[in-house]
């Protein structure tokens, strides 16, 4: 898919100049591509005049074909606000319209349109406080990783509990960095569970996230700020179990993947 490069292009679908000045489409250039797992890549982007973002926010990405056909998807920002570049981590979906390009074809130097940052709801800042209870399945880790990176960057020591469900060890996104963050011993505890295949000798979680795992990871009496991101079924199951365990509704924030898994 060819990508339109003009930053001042006004798409037919915009309602007028005022909308693009509020949150304009910007042309992002890929500077580096990082292979995270066989199905997941991180794109490091140069975004002119990027206004900065908060951990947990997302962007809209728009690709334009040579025939003018446009496809638009939302992707969570993986990088901390402190990072010098905006990073998106994208999982390849076989039937996806946008992700096969971003997760397989795109190369350093390629450009595409992006707007953001978007969302004030699924956001963690130091002012939100802690403890933090993060729950993710697969590429649902992306906005939560921005929170963990931000927490490390500001040297926050609020307790953070991260429950992460992956299919196998090889599917853990940011595996090395998660190990390094946990080794800092600054109050972060990471619990892995593997739903398809467990490493030899593994004594941790070996099933989908369930009530016992949620109860063990962080009790309601700590009144954690909870962020859940992943496939709809995981998000809804975890949120219902957490309410049943006694966590407060107002402290639980969710981010579901779309029907085609577009919201990473």
């Amino acid at each position, binding site marked *: 898919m060819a990508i339109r490069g003009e930053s001042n292009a006004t798409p037919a*679908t*915009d*309602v007028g100049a005022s*909308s693009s000045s*509020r*949150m304009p489409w910007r042309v992002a250039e890929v500077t580096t591509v990082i292979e995270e797992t066989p199905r997941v890549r991180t794109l490091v982007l140069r975004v002119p005049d990027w206004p900065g973002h908060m951990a947990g926010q*997302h*962007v*809209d990405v728009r690709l334009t074909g040579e025939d003018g056909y446009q496809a*638009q*998807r*939302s992707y969570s920002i993986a990088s901390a606000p402190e990072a010098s570049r905006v990073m998106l981590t994208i999982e390849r979906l076989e039937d996806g319209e946008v992700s096969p390009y971003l997760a397989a074809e795109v190369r350093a130097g390629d450009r595409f349109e992006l*707007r*953001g940052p*978007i*969302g*004030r*709801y*699924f*956001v963690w*800042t130091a*002012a939100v406080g802690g403890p933090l209870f993060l729950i993710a399945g697969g590429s649902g880790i992306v906005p939560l990783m921005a929170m963990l990176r931000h927490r490390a960057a500001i040297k926050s020591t609020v307790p953070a509990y991260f429950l992460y469900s992956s299919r196998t060890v090889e599917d853990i996104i940011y595996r090395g960095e998660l190990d390094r963050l946990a080794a800092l011993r600054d109050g972060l505890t990471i619990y892995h569970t593997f739903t398809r295949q467990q490493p030899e000798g593994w004594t941790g979680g070996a099933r989908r996230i369930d009530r016992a795992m949620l109860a063990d990871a962080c009790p309601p009496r700590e009144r954690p700020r909870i962020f859940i991101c992943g496939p*709809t079924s995981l998000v809804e199951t975890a949120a219902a179990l957490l309410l049943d365990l006694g966590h407060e509704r107002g402290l639980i*924030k*969710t*981010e*579901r993947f*779309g*029907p085609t898994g577009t*919201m990473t």
Partner: protein
Amino acid sequence: MTTDHESDSAPPLDGNAVGGLLRELFVLDITAATLTCGGCGITALVGDVRVFGGPMGAIFRCVHCDTAVMRVVHTPTGLWFDMRGARNLHVTPHA
């Protein structure tokens, strides 16, 4: 505007997911604003409301009573916005 339940077979998103679409209408990011349902009077954060649709159009539905509290849709003639189902929208200054 499409019929209300046309897109209901697809699983819903969170209101937060279509924050970009809302920014085409609002000066502020309203995903952390509070919306009061005109049907049952319950309040919820816009980012927490169930949304059906995508970047070209979305229906926001009350979690409690299923009332369509907001509808936003792109058409060839422009952008339509319908808030009949909401009693009010409370936007607080960002921290």
